[in-house]
C-alpha cells in the first residue's frame, strides 16, 4: 500500500514538473518578449491553433505508448490524409463524405498495423516504420503535385478553415487603436474534445484500464483474463483514427496537400508524450501530460520566432535538451524506486 502510494506520487511529480516547466517557459517568454505581444491571450491561443493537430496525434501516441508500443507512422499518415482531402475535394467529393473517408482510411490503416503488432507479434517499431514508408509512398502515388485547397474548390471546407470562434474575454487594443477579439479555430475545439474524451476513456472505461494493464505487464494482463492481442490492436486503431482527426485539423491549418508535409511529426508527438511523463516501456502516463508536452513544444518555437534572430534549428535543439532533462529525471526516479524496493 505504502509502496504503491509512492509510485503514484513520483508519476504525479513528473506531471507537476511538466506543468511548472510550461508555466516557467511561458512566463519567461512574457518577460523577454512582452513588448512583442507575448503577454496577449492570442499568443497562447495561436500556440493551440498551430498545434491542434499535434494534440490529437499526441493523444493517440500516448495511447499506443501506454501499451508499450510506438507508432511512427503518424507523420506520413497525416501527409496522406491531407493529400486525400486535397485530391478528393478537387474531384468534387463533398466535405463531409471526404472527412468520413479519411477517418475510415485511418481506422483501416490502424487495423492493419494493429493486427501485425497484436496478432502476428511483430515489433511495433518495424510495423509502424513500414506504415510510415507506405503512407509517404501512397501520398506520392495519389499525387506528387503541391495542391492547395482554395475557395473555388470547396467553399465549405474553406469557410470551416477560416472560421474564427471569438472568445468573450481577453481582448486588447492594438497599437493602431483597434480592439482585437481573441479567437480560436475549429481545430482547437476538436483537439480539446479529443483530449477530454481520451482522458475520460483512459481513466474510467474498461478499455482504458486494460491498456494500462497490458502496458504494465503483458503476462499479468493475460492471466487476469484480458484479451491482450485485441487490446493492442484497438490501441493502434485508436491511434491511427486520432491521427486522421489530427490530419484533418492539420489540413485545416495548411490548406494544402504535398508529399513533403508533416515530416518528422511523429518525433514531435513522441517527444511531447515523453516530456509529458509517458514511459515508452508502457503502463505509465496520461494525456494531460502529453497536452502540456505539446504546449511546451509550441512555446519554445513561439519564443524562438519572437526573438527573430535565432537560427531555425534552435527549437529542435531546445526540445532535445528538454527531452534530455526529462528523461534523466525519469530514469533517476526509476533507479531510486528500484533501490528502495531492494
Amino acid at each position: 500500500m505504502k509502496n504503491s502510494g509512492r509510485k503514484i506520487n513520483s508519476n504525479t511529480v513528473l506531471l507537476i514538473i511538466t506543468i511548472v516547466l510550461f508555466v516557467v517557459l511561458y512566463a519567461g517568454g512574457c518577460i523577454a518578449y512582452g513588448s512583442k505581444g507575448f503577454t496577449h491571450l492570442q499568443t497562447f491561443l495561436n500556440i493551440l491553433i498551430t498545434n491542434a493537430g499535434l494534440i490529437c496525434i499526441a493523444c493517440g501516441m500516448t495511447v499506443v505508448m501506454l501499451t508499450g508500443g510506438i507508432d511512427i507512422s503518424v507523420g506520413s499518415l497525416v501527409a496522406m490524409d491531407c493529400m486525400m482531402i486535397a485530391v478528393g475535394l478537387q474531384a468534387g467529393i463533398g466535405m463531409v463524405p471526404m472527412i468520413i473517408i479519411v477517418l475510415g482510411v485511418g481506422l483501416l490503416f490502424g487495423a492493419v498495423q494493429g493486427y501485425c503488432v497484436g496478432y502476428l507479434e511483430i515489433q511495433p517499431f518495424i510495423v509502424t516504420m513500414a506504415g510510415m514508408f507506405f503512407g509517404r509512398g501512397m501520398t506520392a502515388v495519389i499525387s506528387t503535385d503541391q495542391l492547395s485547397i482554395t475557395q473555388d474548390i470547396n467553399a465549405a471546407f474553406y469557410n470551416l478553415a477560416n472560421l474564427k470562434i471569438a472568445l468573450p474575454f481577453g481582448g486588447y487594443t492594438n497599437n493602431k487603436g483597434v480592439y482585437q477579439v481573441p479567437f480560436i479555430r475549429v481545430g482547437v475545439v476538436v483537439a480539446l474534445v479529443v483530449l477530454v474524451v481520451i482522458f475520460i476513456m483512459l481513466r474510467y472505461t474498461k478499455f482504458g484500464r486494460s491498456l494500462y494493464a497490458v502496458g504494465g505487464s503483458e503476462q499479468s494482463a493475460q492471466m487476469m483474463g484480458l484479451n491482450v492481442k485485441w487490446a493492442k490492436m484497438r490501441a493502434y486503431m485508436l491511434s491511427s483514427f486520432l491521427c486522421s482527426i489530427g490530419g484533418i485539423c492539420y489540413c485545416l491549418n495548411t490548406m494544402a496537400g504535398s508529399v513533403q508535409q508533416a515530416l518528422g511529426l511523429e518525433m514531435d508527438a513522441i517527444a511531447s508524450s515523453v516530456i509529458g511523463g509517458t514511459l515508452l516501456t508502457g503502463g505509465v502516463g496520461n494525456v494531460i501530460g502529453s497536452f502540456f508536452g505539446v504546449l511546451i513544444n509550441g512555446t519554445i518555437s513561439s519564443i524562438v520566432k519572437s526573438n527573430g534572430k535565432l537560427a531555425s534549428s534552435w527549437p529542435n535543439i531546445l526540445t532535445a535538451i528538454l527531452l534530455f532533462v526529462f528523461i534523466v529525471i525519469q530514469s533517476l526516479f526509476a533507479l531510486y524506486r528500484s533501490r528502495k524496493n531492494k
Partner: protein
Amino acid sequence: MNKNNTSIWTRIRSSALFLPFVCLVLVMAVNIIYDTMNGSNPLTFFIITLRDTTGNGTILYGRIIDILNRGSEAALLALGMTLVVSSSAGTDISVGSVMSVCASFCCMLLAGYGVSSTNDFNVPLVVGILAALILGCVCGAFNGFLVAFLKIQPMVATLILYSAARAVGLLMCNDLIVYIRNDAYGFLGGFCGILPTPIIITAICIVILTLVLKKTALGMYIQSVGINDKASRIAGLNSKMIIWATYVLCGLFAAIAGVVASSRITSADSNNIGLYMELDAILAVALGGNSLGGGKFNLAGSVIGAYTIQAITTTLYNLGVSSAQAPVFKAIIVIIIVAIQAPPVKAFMRKRAAQKQTVREGARA
C-alpha cells in the same frame, strides 16, 4: 536417400543467412524476368564492364557495382546497428542525424566557420576526417551513457540526438550548404583505381570488425549481455561497459558513413545527409534475420540485408517507379518478410509440417 536430402534442406532453411539470401535472389530474379520481357539481355543485371569516363579514368561499371556503391552507407550503419541491437535489445535511431552532424563538422573544419564554398583546406584533410570520427564516437558515447548507465530505453535515449544532432549540424554550417571543391575530399566518395572508394571502405570496415569480433571475445560478450544482462554481470562481465562500447562503435560507423556520404556530393548538406538512413539500417538488421529483441547476432546477415534494400531500391527505379513512390513497395516487402519471420506464423508452419509428417508416416505404415 530421401531423408538425407530433407535434412540438408532443413539445415539450409534453418541457417541464419537463409532469409536474406532468398530475398536477394528474389530481387535478382525480378530483374532477370524484367530484362527478358523487355527484350534485352536477361543477365544485364550481372554484367560488369570496364568503361572510360572523362572524370575518373577507367572504372568498373554495372548494376551490381552501383548497388554495392550506393549501399555502402547503409551497410556501414548496419554494422554498428547490429551490435547495438544485439547488446541492448533496442535501436539507435540517431545514426542518420549523427551522419549529418559529423559530415557538417568535417566540412566546417575544412572550410572554416561561415564559409560556404572553398577550394583549399583550412586544416589538413586528415584532421577534418579524424575530428568527424571523434565527434561520431562522442555522440555514440552520449547515447551509450544514457542507455547503459542511466538505463533509459534505447529509442528514447537516441531520440535526443535524433532531433538535436541534425540541428547542431545546421548551426555548424551557419544554415548553409558548405561546398568543398577539392578533388582530395571527393576521393572518399569517388573512385579508387577502378573501384568506387565507398565499396573499399565498407569492405575494410567489415573485415576489421569481423576480425575483432571473431579473434577476441568481444562478439561473445556482446551476445551474452544481450541474452541476459544480469547473468553476464554475475558471470564477471562488465555489462554496462560492453553496452556502452557498442554505442560508441555505432557512432563511429555513423561518422564514417557520414563522411563518405558528404564526400560523394563534396559538400555538407545537413538537411539531407543521412535522412531516413536509420530506418534503412534497422531494416537491414531485421532483414538479416537478427531479432530486434537482442541476443544472438549475425553480421553477415545485416550486411546482406543492407545491400538487399539497396538492390530493391535500384530494381524499383529500374522498373520505372519514381523515388517518391518506391516506399510503398518497400513497405509491402518489409511487412511480408517480417511477417514470415513472425512467431505465430512460424508456429503455424511448423504445425503444418508436423501434420504432413504424420500423414506421410501413416501412409508408409
